[in-house]
C-alpha cells in the first residue's frame, strides 16, 4: 500500500514538473494585459507625418484567398482594398461616389459620357501616386484591362469587361477612355473599382508569362490608398500600415485584421474588446453585444434581401408551382411579419416585397409585402382545385399531394424559419419537405448536382443582391440563362421564362438615364410581384459591430471602409 503511495507521489511530482512550464505561465501571464500599457506611440512613424497612432483591429470570418483583385471575388478580400488599393471612386454611407483616383465622375455634362452611351472618358487626378512614389497614369488602367483579358492569367472574373467593354485606351497620361459594345448601365459600380501597378507587375508578367504566381498577389507591397500592405500571415492575420503618400493620410498607425472563422468566437472577441470591428452578426445577438456599453451594432444596407426564389420550371417544379394563384396562396399563408418580429428585428429587417427593396431607389415603393391572410390563401387554393380529398391534412389534386420542397442552406436562422413556416402552412393544408444543404453544395452548378441548379426544389431561400449599389442582376431571371443539361452554367435556377420580364430586363441593362432605369425597375418589381416569382422575406443589411474606442467610423454598403483615413482611436 505504502509503496503505491510513493509511486503515486513520484508520478504526481513528475507530472507537475512537466506541467509547471505551462501551469506557471498560466498564473502569471494573464496579469500582463490587465494593466494595459498605453499603446506606445509608434517609433516607426515617418518623420514627415508624426500623427499616426493607434491600431484598429478587425475580425474577418473568412480569410481572403488572394489580395490581387484579379484572383478573388471574396467579400473579405474586396473590403481590404478600401485600405490599400483604391479605384476610381468609393461609395460613401449614402452610396454617393467619393472620388479617389478620378478627378470627376464622368457625366454627359462634363463630357465624360458620350451621347450614344458607348464611350466613357475618365479623368485622373494629378496628385495620385503609388505607395512607392511612382505616379499613377492611364497606362496602369490599360495594363489592368489587358491583364484581366489576358488568356495567360486565370482571373476570377472578367465581368463586365468581357461582355461589354471593347477597348481601354490611354488618351493621355491622365485620361482613360473606355469603349463599350452597347450602353452599359452598371458602369458606375463595376468598371475600374481597382487598378494594378504596371511598373511592379509588368516585369513579372513578362518573365513568368502570367501573374498567377506573382508575389504581389499575397504581398502587395505597392498599392494606392491610406494604408499600405505590411504583412499577411496565413490563417492568422493581415497588417496594413499608414501610407503617408496618399492624398488623405490616415490618423491610425495600422489596421490589424484577424481571421476568426467561428461566429460565436467572433462574438466573444467583440464582447471582450479583443476586436474593434466585426461583421455578419445576427439581429438576435445585438442586445448581447451592446450590453457591455462598449460596442455599437450598426446596420448597413448592402442590397441583400432574404427571399424565396420559386421554381416555376415546367420541367422539374411541383405542378402547383406553375399556377400564379397557388404561388400567391403560398405567400399569403406565410406570416413573415411574425417571423421578422419574433426572430429578427423589424426595424432592421422589415419584410420586403421585391428583390430590389434593399437597393434603394430601385425597389418599387408602391408595393406592399403580401399580407398574411390564411383565409384568402385557402380560397385561392380551393379555386385552383387543390383540396384535401383524402383527409390526410394536406391538399391534393389529381392524385398529387401539395407537398413542396423547401430548401435552404444549413444556417441556423434559416432552419428555424423553415420550422415556423411549415407549421404556418399546415394551417392551410400545404405540406413541406425540408432540405438543408451546406453552402457549397447549395450553390453547386448543374453538372455537380447543385440542388438549385438542377431544380430539385420548389422554394429556395437565400439572401441575394445585384451589383450593389447598382441593381443589375438580370442573369438570374432571363430565359436564356435557364440552367439545364445544355446550359449547365446558366444562372437562372428558377426555370423562369417570362417574355415581358425578359424585355424589361434587357432594356434596363442599356439604359444609362438613371431616372428612366429606376422606372424600369419599378415595373420589373411589380411584374415579379404580381406573378409571384419571388417572395420577399426580409431586408438583410450587414450588421457590423464597432467598438466605441474607434471613432469617426462611417461604414458603407459597397465600400465599407471608404473613410478609414478619418478613423481614430481613443485610449
Amino acid at each position, binding site marked *: 500500500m505504502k509503496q503505491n503511495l510513493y509511486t503515486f507521489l513520484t508520478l504526481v511530482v513528475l507530472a507537475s514538473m512537466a506541467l509547471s512550464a505551462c501551469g506557471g505561465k498560466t498564473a502569471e501571464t494573464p496579469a500582463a494585459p490587465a494593466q494595459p500599457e498605453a499603446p506606445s506611440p509608434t517609433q516607426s512613424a515617418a518623420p514627415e507625418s508624426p500623427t499616426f497612432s493607434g491600431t484598429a483591429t478587425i475580425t474577418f470570418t473568412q480569410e481572403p484567398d488572394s489580395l490581387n483583385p484579379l484572383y478573388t471575388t471574396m467579400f473579405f478580400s474586396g473590403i481590404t482594398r478600401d485600405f490599400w488599393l483604391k479605384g476610381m471612386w468609393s461609395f460613401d454611407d449614402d452610396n454617393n461616389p467619393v472620388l479617389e483616383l478620378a478627378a470627376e465622375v464622368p457625366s454627359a455634362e462634363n463630357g465624360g459620357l458620350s451621347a450614344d452611351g458607348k464611350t466613357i472618358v475618365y479623368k485622373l487626378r494629378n496628385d495620385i501616386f503609388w505607395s512607392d512614389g511612382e505616379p499613377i497614369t492611364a497606362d496602369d488602367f490599360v495594363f489592368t484591362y489587358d491583364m484581366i483579358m489576358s488568356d495567360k492569367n486565370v482571373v476570377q472574373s472578367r465581368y463586365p469587361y468581357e461582355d461589354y467593354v471593347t477597348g481601354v485606351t490611354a488618351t493621355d497620361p491622365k485620361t482613360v477612355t473606355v469603349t463599350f459594345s452597347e450602353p452599359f448601365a452598371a458602369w458606375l459600380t463595376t468598371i475600374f473599382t481597382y487598378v494594378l501597378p504596371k511598373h511592379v507587375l509588368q516585369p513579372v508578367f513578362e518573365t513568368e508569362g502570367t501573374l498567377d504566381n506573382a508575389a504581389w498577389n499575397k504581398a502587395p507591397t505597392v498599392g494606392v490608398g491610406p494604408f499600405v500592405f505590411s504583412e499577411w500571415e496565413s490563417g492568422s492575420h493581415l497588417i496594413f500600415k499608414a501610407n503617408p503618400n496618399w492624398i488623405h493620410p490616415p490618423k491610425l498607425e495600422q489596421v490589424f485584421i484577424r481571421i476568426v472563422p467561428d461566429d460565436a468566437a467572433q462574438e466573444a472577441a467583440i464582447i471582450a474588446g479583443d476586436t474593434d470591428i466585426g461583421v455578419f452578426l445576427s439581429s438576435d445577438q445585438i442586445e*448581447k453585444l451592446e450590453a457591455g456599453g462598449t460596442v455599437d451594432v450598426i446596420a448597413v444596407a448592402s442590397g441583400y434581401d432574404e427571399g424565396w426564389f420559386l421554381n416555376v420550371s415546367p420541367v422539374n417544379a411541383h405542378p402547383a408551382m406553375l399556377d400564379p394563384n397557388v404561388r400567391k396562396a403560398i405567400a399569403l399563408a406565410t406570416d413573415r411579419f411574425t*417571423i421578422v418580429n419574433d426572430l429578427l428585428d423589424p426595424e432592421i429587417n422589415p419584410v420586403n416585397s421585391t428583390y430590389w427593396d434593399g437597393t434603394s431607389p430601385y425597389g418599387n415603393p408602391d408595393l406592399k409585402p403580401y399580407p398574411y391572410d390564411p383565409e384568402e390563401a385557402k380560397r385561392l387554393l380551393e379555386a385552383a382545385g387543390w383540396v384535401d380529398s383524402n383527409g390526410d391534412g394536406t391538399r391534393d389534386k389529381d392524385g398529387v399531394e401539395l407537398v413542396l420542397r423547401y430548401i435552404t442552406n444549413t444556417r*441556423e436562422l434559416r432552419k428555424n424559419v423553415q*420550422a415556423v413556416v411549415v*407549421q404556418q402552412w399546415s394551417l392551410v393544408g400545404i405540406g413541406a419537405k425540408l*432540405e438543408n444543404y451546406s453552402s457549397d453544395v447549395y450553390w453547386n452548378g448543374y453538372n455537380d448536382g447543385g*440542388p438549385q441548379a438542377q431544380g430539385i426544389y420548389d422554394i429556395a431561400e437565400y439572401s441575394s443582391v445585384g451589383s450593389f449599389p447598382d441593381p443589375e442582376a438580370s442573369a438570374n431571371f432571363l430565359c436564356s440563362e435557364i440552367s439545364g443539361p445544355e446550359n449547365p452554367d446558366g444562372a437562372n435556377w428558377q426555370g423562369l421564362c417570362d417574355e415581358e420580364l425578359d424585355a424589361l430586363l434587357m432594356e434596363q441593362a442599356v439604359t444609362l438615364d438613371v431616372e428612366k432605369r429606376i422606372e424600369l425597375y419599378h415595373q420589373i418589381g411589380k411584374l415579379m410581384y404580381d406573378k409571384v416569382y419571388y417572395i420577399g422575406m426580409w431586408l438583410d443589411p450587414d450588421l457590423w459591430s464597432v467598438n466605441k474606442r474607434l471613432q469617426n467610423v462611417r461604414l458603407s454598403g459597397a465600400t465599407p471602409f471608404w473613410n478609414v483615413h478619418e478613423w481614430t482611436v481613443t485610449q
Partner: protein
Amino acid sequence: MSEPVATSSTSLIPNARQATRPLSPLNLAARRFRKHRMASVGLYLLGFLFVYITLGSLLSRGYCAPLKKDLTGEAYANCNDTSLKLQAPSREHIFGTDVIGRDIFARTIYGGQISVMIGISAAFVEVLLGALVGAVAAYYGGWVDSILMRITEAMLNIPSLFLLIIGARFFGGGLPSLNFFGRELTGSVIVIILIIGATSWMYLARIVRANILSLRERDYISASRALGASDARIIFAHLLPNTIAPLVVSATLGVASAIISEAYVSFLGLGVQGATATWGNMLDGAYQYLETAPWLWFFPGTLILLTVLGINFVGDGLRDALDPYSTRHV
C-alpha cells in the same frame, strides 16, 4: 504462462458444460459487476434515462397556440410558438423554450430517442466491422492480414472529418425517409449512423488484431488447432472472447463517442436535418446563447453528459467483471 481452461471459459456464450457448474464464470462476472460501485451508478443512470426517453413521452402534451389545439407526443415537441421564444424554465415549460418557442422538455425526450438510437446503431456497426477485420487479419496473417491492414491503414489515413463530409456528400438528401416504430425518420439519421459507424472501426480493429497476435502464440490455441478445431471456432470461441475486454471497452466508448460525434457532425452543419430533434442538433442551435439562455444548452448537454457517463461507467464495470483476474486486492 498458459492458463487455458480459465481463460477460455470466460466466454460470454455459455455452453452446456459450464452451465452445470455451481458458479459459472458468467455468475462470477455478474457478482463482480454488482460490486463495482461506478457500474451500479451507471446502470441506475441509464435506467433513469431509459425511462425518461420512453415513458417521458407520455408527459409531452400541451396546448399549441398557433395551431389552436392540444397536442401530444412528437407533434407537441415540434409545435413552435415564436411569441414564446427563449423563455426560461417555468411551470408550463419546465425546461424552458428554444429560439422558436418549442418546448425543450418535449424535445429532449424525442431528441433523446434519436440520439440514443444513433449511438447504439453506430457503435454496433463499429464493433461489427472492427472485431471482424481485426480478428480475421490477426488469425490468418499473411496476405489476408496484409490486405485488411492496408485497408485499415488507408481508412486511418483519412481524417474522419473528411470521411464524414464525403459521406454526407454521397448520401445527403438522397436517402428516403424511413418509418421506424411508427416514427418518420429522415434519411439523414441513417446516413449519420452509417457514417459514424463506418469511420470509427479502425482503431478497434488494430487493438483486436494486436491482442490476438499475442494470444495466437499461446499454447491453448495451438492445442485447439491440434485438436482440429475449425478456424471459425477458434476465432469466435477462443480468440474473440479473450479480447472481450478491449471489445467491451471500445463498444461502450463507441456508443458514447457516437452520441458525441452526432453533436460534432451537427456543429459542422451535416447533422440530422429537418424537424427531427437530436440532442446534438439542439446543442448546436444553442451555443450562441451560452450566457443569455443557458437552458438551451444545459438540458440537452446534461443529458448527453449523463448518458455518456452512464454508458462509460457500465462499460468500465463490465471490463472489470469480465476479466477473471481482476480482483480488488491489487
